[in-house]
């Protein structure tokens, strides 16, 4: 009997100790978690629901449920375009979607921008890292210089690049020396505007990824190169057969980061072209902001969900592939 009460007592004490431990732990987490839950977690959940409502931001009671019709409206190709088709089939209508519909154009522009920016940034940052990886005097200074665009304010550098790419700006002047006849302001030309954004993006972020590549390069065992030299491999063979394969996990990681970053591009576009001329550089996020500024909150959330799905699928691929990498 007494033993029974003792063990119960012990259990109770153990339980209260456990509870105390949990309470202490929660007290550590609470300051951050309360802010995090209120301003990140809850909005994420609301965003999903809001994309299925219609609301102009007025009284909360004006918000009403519309189901999937926001999405239908975003993906719908207006009948007047389809009527003009000679042979309306799935592919020609899909073509119309990417040519005429706002969401289609934003998707096409975002993907184009991503497909050019990611490889360009990869090549530039690997090249910079390779040059800097050689033991040179002043490596720290060079590294800081090449990194500097990444920390400088987007507003300041975008206006500077905008001026440099003006009709009679220094870049067109320089190109003229090489026989170019292009004499328009880059951001006002529907073909060049996206290139203006790409150049600034690559220039701004290459230093960041260079740093990641530098760390990865330093992790490649020296013996590999020594063995290759003994086997008579030249520098180029060493690069393609040792350096690049050894860097591939980093390249994969960097590509994922870059792709996600490109999907979310906003500042550079808003500051350089504002999505123009016309809709030539309208991106997903500039589209969200446009619709948001027009007080179509439900619809803006629906576009945001399209962005979310894109970003999450890239992350999911990353998870899958990372498992493969670590299994290898």
């Amino acid at each position, binding site marked *: 009997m007494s033993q029974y009460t003792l063990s119960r007592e012990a259990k109770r004490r153990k339980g209260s100790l456990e509870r105390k431990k949990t309470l*202490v732990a929660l007290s*550590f987490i609470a300051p*951050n978690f309360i802010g995090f839950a209120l301003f990140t977690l809850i909005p994420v959940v609301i965003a999903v629901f809001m994309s299925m409502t219609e609301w102009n931001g007025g009284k909360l009671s004006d918000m009403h449920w519309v189901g999937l019709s926001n999405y239908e409206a975003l993906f719908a190709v207006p009948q007047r375009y389809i009527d003009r088709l000679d042979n309306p089939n799935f592919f020609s209508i899909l073509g119309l979607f990417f040519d005429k519909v706002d969401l289609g154009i934003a998707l096409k522009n975002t993907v184009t921008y991503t497909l050019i920016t990611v490889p360009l940034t990869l090549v530039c940052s690997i090249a910079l890292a390779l040059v800097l990886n050689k033991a040179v005097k002043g490596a720290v200074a060079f590294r800081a210089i090449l990194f*500097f665009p990444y*920390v400088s*304010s987007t507003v*300041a550098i975008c206006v500077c690049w905008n001026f*440099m790419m003006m009709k009679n700006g220094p870049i067109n002047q320089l190109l003229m020396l090489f026989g170019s006849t292009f004499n328009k302001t880059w951001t006002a030309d529907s073909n060049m505007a996206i290139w203006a954004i790409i150049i600034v993006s690559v220039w701004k972020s290459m230093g960041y990824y260079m740093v990641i590549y530098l760390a990865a390069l330093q992790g490649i065992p020296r013996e590999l190169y020594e063995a290759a030299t003994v086997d008579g491999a030249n520098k180029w063979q060493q690069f393609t057969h040792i350096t690049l394969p050894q860097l591939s996990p980093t390249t994969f990681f960097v590509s994922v980061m870059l792709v*996600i970053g490109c999907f979310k591009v906003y500042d550079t576009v808003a500051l350089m072209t504002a999505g123009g001329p016309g809709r030539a550089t309208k991106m997903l996020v500039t589209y969200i902001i446009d619709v948001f500024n027009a007080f179509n909150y439900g619809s803006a*959330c629906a576009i945001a969900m399209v962005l979310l799905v894109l970003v999450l699928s890239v992350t999911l691929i990353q998870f899958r592939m990372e498992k493969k990498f670590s299994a290898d």
Partner: protein
Amino acid sequence: MTTSIMNAGKAIRPENHTAQRIGKVLLYVALILLSVVTLIPFVWMLSSSLKLDREVFEFPIRWIPQVFHWENYSLIWTKAPMLMYFKNTAIVALSVTFIQTMTSSFAAYAFAKLEFKGRDTLFMCYIATIAVPWQAYMIPQFIEFRAIGLYDKLTAIMVLQAFSAFGVFLMRQFYRGIPTELCEAARIDGLSEYGIWARIMLPLSKAAIATLVIFTFIGTWNDYMGPMIYLTTESVKTVQVGLRRFIQENSSDYHLIMAASMVSLIPVSVVFLCLQRYFIEGIATSGLKG
């Protein structure tokens, strides 16, 4: 066989030496060229900021202005409340950095070193939202902020940035590297969990904290989208949105815009130059683990 290889090595050595020297020179030339290309926009910005507006697009480019118009740099302060923008941004950036660093390292300690029910589930919430882009939930967040009266307040920008999941993640990764035996020894010595955090973990995590501080400070200072959505009144604007307004209102005063842009770059440049080692090393380690 061995001797023949060694002989071959000896034979090509002198030639190798000059080749190496040429390689080294080429390397420096490449590095200097790359640095120049990287810095040219800043040089052009500086040079234009010291010219008259009609001189900015002169052909051919005159990199060093004929006359240095330093007065451009005093003029900008009268054209826009630049000083106020700086003050606002400093307030926001410093408070965000402080709140972010303190709350993240506090929470990270529990996630890394304490055992309790639901720890992993809670941490998964954090990890999952790192993958969710802010742009996907900024609208409900905006409505929430407006409902609690934060619209057009500096506080909104503080709250927006101060509780990021990234900070907790970064600090937790670092704390996991600190041996648990240290904490246990301290516990036996009668130190409370708060004591362990303050007297053992914090001092040991200086490098990680430095990284988080610089990341947060520079990120907040340069943030454009948040202030653009939330701030409309002149008196609460930050440097980035203030500079944007300056550009729109003086759109043909190229020289003044360049001067204001130059000035806006100064604080971050100073912070970066002083602490660049932590920043760059932080990226190299945390970036890879991502």
